């Protein structure tokens, strides 16, 4: 980690590998600055790691990165201990948070962070890129919350790119808050909702049993992508309601560690 006039630069790294005894080893678990990592247990083949916020971040100007590299057959559940608050910085520039996930054949990652809350006056660009081998599985949750309770939002952008076998599976970018492209909160945008989230399930088993597109609630839809994957998209009035919707969706579509192979 380095800190300068332009903000904090920190890069946390996780490498997970099958340990040959049915479990997953973590040859590298290196936190950095505000991104501290703790091994928090395991469940059968799956290692558990929690991202612990060691200080307030991201602030304006910060550049944070998280890399998780899963070798063949490795299984990892990666969570965070608390919501991430995007806060305004002193230098008035945007913060960046880059997440890079690489999954080899047979690897399974559940990336289930707590919500990202955009605080008034903050500016954060998140980029998540996952690259999967053919038989890798990914469960990914993203929750974006515009402002703390009763507070106006900052500017929050997030791009999610998933590439499978070198081909794009999902590429989506959203941008909300003051300064976002016009119409973000209008009738084609969020229409007043303050929480938006996604649950992505990539599972090669879907190739044989493709899930149907389904409405799970008034503003929640589960949609099969053009590939063995399902994307649940939800908008909600607040973070609590959003989590309830995504938890319910996870109950339908996500795998759990106990039944690691589908």
């Amino acid at each position, binding site marked *: 980690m380095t800190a300068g006039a332009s903000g904090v630069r920190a890069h946390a790294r996780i490498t997970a590998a099958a340990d040959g005894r049915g479990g997953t080893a973590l040859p590298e678990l290196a936190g950095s600055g505000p991104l501290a990592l703790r091994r928090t247990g395991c469940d059968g083949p799956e290692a558990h790691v929690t991202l612990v916020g060691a200080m307030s971040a991201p602030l304006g100007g910060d550049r944070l990165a998280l890399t998780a590299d899963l070798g063949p057959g490795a299984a990892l559940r990666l969570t965070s201990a608390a919501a991430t608050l995007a806060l305004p910085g002193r230098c008035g520039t945007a913060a960046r948070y880059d997440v890079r996930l690489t999954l080899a054949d047979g690897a399974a990652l559940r990336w289930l962070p707590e919500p990202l809350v955009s605080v008034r006056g903050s500016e954060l660009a998140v980029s998540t890129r996952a690259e999967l081998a053919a038989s890798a599985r990914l469960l990914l949750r993203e929750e974006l919350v515009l402002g703390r309770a009763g507070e106006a939002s900052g500017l929050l952008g997030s*791009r999610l*790119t*998933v*590439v499978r076998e070198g*081909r*794009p*599976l*999902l*590429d*989506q*970018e*959203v*941008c909300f808050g003051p300064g976002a*492209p*016009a*119409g*973000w909160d*209008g*009738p*084609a*945008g*969020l*229409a007043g*909702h303050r929480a*938006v989230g*996604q649950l992505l399930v990539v599972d090669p088993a879907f190739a044989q049993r493709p899930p149907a*597109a389904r*409405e799970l609630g008034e*503003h*929640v*839809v589960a*949609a*099969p*992508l*053009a590939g063995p994957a399902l*994307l649940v*998209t*939800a*908008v909600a009035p607040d973070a609590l309601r959003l989590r309830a919707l995504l938890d319910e969706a996870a109950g339908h579509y996500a795998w759990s560690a106990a039944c690691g192979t589908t």
Partner: protein
Amino acid sequence: MTDRTTSPAPAPSPAAGPATLLVLADGRFPAGGHAHSGGAEAAVKAGRIRDAAGLEEFCRGRLHTAGLVAAALAAAAALGLDPAELDAAADARTPVPALRTASRKLGRQLLRAARAVWPAPGLDALAAAFPRGAHQPVVLGLTARAAGLGPRDAAYAALYESVGGPATATVRLLGLDPFEATAVLARLAPALDDLAGRATAAAHRARDEGAGVLPAASAPLLDIAAHQHAQWPVRLFAS
């Protein structure tokens, strides 16, 4: 600065002038677009569009998301990028099956008209490679190319279509005064100009760096509503 993104290699200069673009972008071009509301029917039903102001906000949101993405894909196709790579990029940017189906159907209809209007080997090859239809913006870009138009023209056609459809549909759905609906489109013109430039710049960048760098702006509520709309037993518009 040797920045490849700002100084792209010169494209073959478009042979066709503005009149050809008028033919392509005309709402009466027989490509089936009139049957689609671009999400406006669902937004009207949900009470999110009630008047001209609501239509304008809806159109601005759509322009900066689906409109920009379609424009960049069309510009890239007009520039000569691999249609298969662009079609895969369109799939990845269209998570809802109802919208993927609508886009491919519109692509098929447009290609049929385009091959009659501007016959070209590139269009024949596209039809052979995608018997079930390529995504509409990809077909639109190749159609522009066949017509002798350039990437910026293709971007304009895509952007205009992304708001022209909802505006026309809202006149029918709400009984909105056509003068007011057209005034909305006129007020959006500067945004179209801006986005056409950005889409064209993105297409040039994609030629050097691959289709992955094309815009991917999405609107979660439009996606959710598009799936719900496709389930309605009775509807005026196909999407």
